[in-house]
């Protein structure tokens, strides 16, 4: 059946189908629609007729009702309208049939008249029954008319389609036929004639495509012819190359065997036959089995089994292998290379075997290997860690010692970057990892790392201090080919250094840092200019514990106090033992923090009940706080301020915290005193003290003394050359423990001056030197004075040491011992400022002094104050009764002198007789007198 026939057939089928479907659908639809319409119309009509029925009944006008029924029936949807009244009467109206469709269609359409029965009730009043019957003729007529239209439309469509087919399809069919013929021609291989491109757009496109295909086929055929020609030429070339390759392989010093995938020999050179003592021509080996040849020649090898098994392994592995060494029975070494010949997709096309006599090379290599092994063993045996790298900084060797320290063995480390294996930091650096190898590789120069280098273990949980150096490895031409890194574990040395450093900076008893280290940290804090404060602590009653319970108790107390302080001082602060019973805390914080810590320490210590050998001691602490230490550039001044504040706390009653403030007058005076103390130190160092003296004048003519009797007085000249009164600097010197140094200076200078000229010495009767209570605390005072006496040649009887009543009483035993010791050397002693202290006369029994110096406060106004006069008299009487001579101080008037004389006082000292003057000037007239 042709395409055209099929088209017509399909068209007809479609048309018939459409008509049938349309007819059925229309009928069903119309039927349903008609039914619905009829029912609705009947209802609507019934509604109207009901009203008419009611109206007619009420108005008693049934004739009108009958008329109305006929009118309704005449509306073409009603076949019959019937009203049955309650009393049995009926009114009927019927319509004439008006169907236009043939009867068979009417039956086929299956339209059914609708009947409506309805009771006529109007607001509870029964007006009978209404029966309406619909007329189907209208619906039948409508459907019949619709069907006719539908048929006409279908016919028209059919006609149109046929025309379209005839107009469009026929030419297309012709074109398809033409293209079919052309395709057949192409299939027969007739490619020479071109395919015309014509017709409708689609056919033209198809024709063009077919024409392109023809051209491609034609080109392809031409290329194939050309390739065949080329292949033929290639074959000739290959033949030539083959002959050339053969001659090349024959001339090589390498035995060559080429096999196909089944191990049949494709080619073997003469040297192969020579190596394996194959007597036949290599050409004759073609197609022999390579495996057979191996079996035949295996006995030439020292280990034939290994030789054969290796070959099998290589073939099965299908990977190139070079330098397989085999030892031959005749002592030669053969090196074998195996190359599987593969095509582009990985299929084995052959096996290529090469054999080379490497006996000479192997020997050399073996020697090198032996040397390398020896070197490695040597390196492994030495005590230093050794790591070598190549030119790129990758590890090539690591010895056992390096493995121990780094945690990397050779199998792990080989090939890794050196910075991975050798991880070191400078102990006091910026925390970055060191990389000396890079520097060596870059510069070619040896690099030594700092002595304080820490090498990290692989797991980084351990660091080892090392000393290290890295040197380049150079070849014969001086080029860097690697590096060698050598390091020595200095853990022991490091530990010792650390220990010494620790000992130098820490207090052994309390394990706290010591004064020196603390001052260093303090200085650092000052320079940082941050928020820092200084707390200075001085234990109260520590001396009591030490003196009463002994040094062991004192040490234990210090340990307990240290533990207490540690538990009350945060780790951000620095706690130190400054010495003795003094502690300090460097507070990282403001004044509030410092005060809080200070108060906490005070309370903690106040709560401490120190027990030792059954005795309980109540301990407290005096604390000075200096805030904002960065504002004080001078650290010594800072310490002095802290000390002053601490001292102020003590003076205020102990167990207190005293905050240093610039406006604190007490501390200001303390600070002035401290400044003075600093000046005193300087004065001592630079000899800015001066010796002055004041004469003691005998008041009684019976005195046997001849010569100068004077009291040596100390004067200080400040940096500007002004004299500073002893009343100013002596208390400061006493407070800060310098007075004994001044005493010693006075002693030495006085003896030096007296001993400088024999005449002067001869003219001096007694030279009184004041000694402070602190001097007596110095155990070597007797020795010092004795040495000076001997050094300067001053006899003891020329000297009188004046001791204040207060000092004598507070250190009674020391003073008494000193007096006894020095009296044996002829020295004399005077008890100074007698009467001003709180001692009783009882002490005079224990102090074998020569002179009793009555305090000037009693002498000055003894003429006005009878009590003073009586006291002076009393002191004189007692002194004399004890065999002592009396000296009255501060004699400023003749009347006082006379009164003293009358009393019997032996000597007078005061402005009335002599104002103090430089000792040298006082002694000078004596030399002039001598002259």
């Amino acid at each position, binding site marked *: 059946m042709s395409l055209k026939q099929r088209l017509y057939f399909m068209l007809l089928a479609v048309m018939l189908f459409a008509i049938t479907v349309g007819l059925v659908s229309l009928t069903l639809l119309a039927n349903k629609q008609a039914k619905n319409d009829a029912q609705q119309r009947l209802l609507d009509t019934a509604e109207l007729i009901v009203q008419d029925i*009611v109206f007619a009944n009420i108005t008693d006008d049934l004739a009108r009702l009958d008329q109305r029924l006929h009118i309704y029936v005449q509306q073409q949807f009603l076949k019959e309208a019937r009203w049955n009244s309650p009393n049995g009467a009926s009114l009927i109206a019927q319509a004439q049939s008006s169907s236009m469709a043939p009867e068979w269609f009417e039956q086929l359409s299956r339209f059914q008249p609708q009947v409506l029965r309805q009771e006529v009730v109007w607001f509870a009043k029964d007006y009978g029954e209404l029966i309406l019957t619909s007329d189907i003729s209208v619906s039948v007529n409508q459907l019949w008319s619709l069907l006719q239209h539908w048929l006409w439309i279908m016919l028209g469509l059919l006609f149109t389609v046929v025309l379209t087919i005839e107009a469009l399809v026929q030419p297309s069919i012709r074109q398809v036929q033409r293209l079919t013929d052309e395709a057949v021609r192409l299939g027969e291989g007739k490619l020479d004639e071109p395919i015309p491109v014509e017709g409708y757009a689609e056919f033209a496109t198809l024709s063009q495509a077919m024409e392109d295909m023809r051209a491609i086929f034609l080109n392809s055929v031409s290329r194939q012819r050309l390739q065949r020609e080329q292949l033929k030429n290639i074959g000739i070339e290959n033949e030539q190359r083959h002959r050339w390759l053969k001659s090349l392989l024959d001339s090589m010093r390498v035995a060559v065997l080429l096999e196909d995938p089944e191990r049949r020999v494709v080619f073997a050179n003469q040297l192969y036959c020579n190596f394996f003592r194959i007597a036949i021509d290599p050409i004759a080996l073609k197609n022999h089995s390579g495996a057979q040849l191996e079996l035949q020649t295996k006995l030439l090898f020292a280990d034939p089994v290994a030789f054969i098994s290796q070959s099998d392994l290589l073939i099965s592995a299908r990977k190139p292998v070079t330098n397989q060494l085999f030892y031959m029975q005749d002592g030669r070494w053969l090196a074998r290379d195996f190359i599987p010949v593969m095509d582009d997709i990985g299929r084995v096309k052959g096996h290529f075997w090469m054999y080379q006599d490497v006996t000479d090379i192997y020997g050399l290599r073996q020697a090198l290997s032996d040397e390398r092994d020896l070197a490695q063993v040597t390196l492994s045996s030495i005590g230093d860690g050794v790591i070598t790298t190549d030119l790129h900084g990758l590890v090539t060797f690591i010895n056992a010692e390096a493995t121990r320290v780094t945690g990397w063995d050779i199998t792990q480390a080989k090939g890794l970057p050196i910075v991975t294996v050798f991880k070191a930091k400078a102990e006091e650096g910026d925390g970055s990892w060191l990389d000396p190898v890079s520097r060596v590789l870059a510069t070619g120069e040896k690099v030594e790392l700092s002595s304080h280098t820490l090498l990290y273990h692989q797991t980084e949980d351990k660091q080892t201090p090392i000393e290290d150096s890295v040197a380049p490895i150079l070849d014969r031409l001086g080029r860097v080919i690697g590096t060698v890194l050598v390091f020595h574990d200095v853990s022991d040395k490091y530990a010792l250094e650390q220990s010494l450093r620790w000992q130098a900076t820490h207090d052994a008893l309390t394990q706290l840092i010591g004064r020196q280290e603390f001052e260093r940290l303090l200085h650092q804090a000052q320079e940082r200019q941050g928020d820092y404060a200084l707390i200075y602590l001085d234990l109260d009653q520590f001396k009591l514990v030490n003196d009463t319970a002994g040094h062991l108790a004192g040490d234990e107390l210090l340990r307990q106090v240290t533990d207490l302080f540690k538990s009350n001082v945060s780790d951000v602060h620095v706690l130190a033992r400054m010495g003795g019973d003094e502690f300090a805390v460097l507070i990282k914080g403001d004044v509030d923090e410092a005060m809080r810590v200070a108060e906490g320490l005070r309370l903690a210590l106040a709560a401490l009940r120190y027990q030792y050998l059954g005795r309980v001691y109540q301990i407290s602490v005096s604390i000075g706080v200096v805030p904002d230490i960065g504002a004080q550039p001078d650290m010594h001044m800072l310490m002095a301020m802290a000390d002053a504040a601490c001292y102020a706390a003590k003076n205020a009653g102990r167990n207190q915290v005293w905050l240093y403030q610039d406006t604190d007058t007490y501390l200001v005076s303390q600070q002035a005193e401290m400044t003075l103390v600093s000046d005193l130190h300087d004065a001592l160092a630079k000899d800015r003290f001066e010796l002055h003296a004041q004469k003691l004048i005998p008041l009684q003519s019976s005195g046997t003394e001849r010569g100068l009797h004077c009291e040596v007085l100390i004067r200080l000249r400040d940096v500007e050359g002004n004299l500073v009164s002893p009343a100013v600097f002596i208390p400061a010197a006493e407070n800060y423990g310098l007075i004994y140094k001044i005493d010693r200076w006075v002693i030495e200078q006085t003896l030096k001056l007296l001993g400088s000229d024999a005449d002067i010495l001869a003219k001096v009767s007694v030279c009184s030197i004041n000694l402070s209570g602190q001097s007596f605390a110095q155990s070597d005072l007797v020795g010092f004075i004795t040495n000076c006496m001997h050094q300067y040649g001053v006899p003891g009887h020329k000297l009188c040491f004046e001791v204040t009543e207060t000092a004598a009483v507070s250190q009674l035993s020391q003073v008494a011992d000193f007096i006894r010791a020095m009296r044996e050397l002829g020295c004399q002693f005077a008890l100074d400022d007698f009467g001003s202290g709180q001692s009783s006369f009882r002490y005079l029994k224990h102090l074998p002094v020569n002179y009793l110096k009555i305090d000037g406060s009693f002498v000055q106004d003894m003429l006005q104050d009878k009590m003073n006069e009586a006291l002076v008299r009393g002191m004189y009487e007692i002194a004399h009764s004890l065999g002592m001579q009396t000296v009255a101080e501060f004699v400023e008037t003749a009347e006082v002198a006379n009164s003293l004389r009358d009393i019997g006082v032996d000597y007078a000292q005061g402005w009335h007789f002599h104002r103090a003057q430089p000792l040298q000037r006082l002694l000078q007239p004596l030399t002039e007198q001598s002259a």
Partner: protein
Amino acid sequence: MVNNTLFSKKLSFYFALIGLFVLYQHTALAGQTYRFGVTNVETVMTTAAQWNPILAWLEQRTGIRLTLQMGMNAEDTQARLMRGEYDFFLGYPLLQDAVREPLGFRVLLKSKNVSNRSAIVVQAKSRYRSLSDLKEAKLWVTHESAFIAHTLPMAALSGAAVKVRLQSVSNQESLVMAFKMGQIPAAALNLGMFERAMAGHSEDYRILWSSADLPSLPIGVQNSVPLGVAERVQAALIEMVNDEAGQKILQSLNRRMGAKLSGWQVATDAEYQFAIAGYRQLERGKLACDD
């Protein structure tokens, strides 16, 4: 003994007669349908909607079957009334001498609490401001038998010496609808019914004249209706407001119609003398109405 037997027989006979009579009455009553006419104030259908439920209730209550009857229009109703086609009648027309005297109509009942006023109304946008403005104007009215909607307005116009040109409409409901749609400029009608219909549109009309509140439409009965029947109907209608079913009917009616019907009460002719006199006066032609 014989006397006793005879007496018993007579007594039985009499009882039987009485029983038959009662049975006859009941049967007669049950079989006979009385015609209840209503004046054409509203359309036939509207009137039926109102009165069919009431009459059905009456039948159920009393056993007396009443069927609603009306003329197609007021004129037709008047003619039927005069022919005696109504046994009961609701409306003022029964008070006409031409109806009362030959048919013996008497008033039985009237509605309770129903306002009944007559009025002459005009469109608010019309030029009519007083009755005198209606001189020679067209005035729409219902049939002359309507006392409230026709007789009284005519009397008022006559009293004002205003002559109008009358245009008749079959019933007041149609008249009110036409006015509401603006089709007629002036009308005479029952004010109560008008106001119910024009609820919410008070600004659209103007009342030129209205009467005093008059008694509501009477229900009357012919002499031909047995007394017992009339009395029973009367009693039932009076009792309707007290009956549960009757109340529901009245409430439903009020909802639908917008009325305020609250039952019926006894009424007599004496209460409607004014209407009777008015009809007489109309008959005498002393009212100046149409031309």
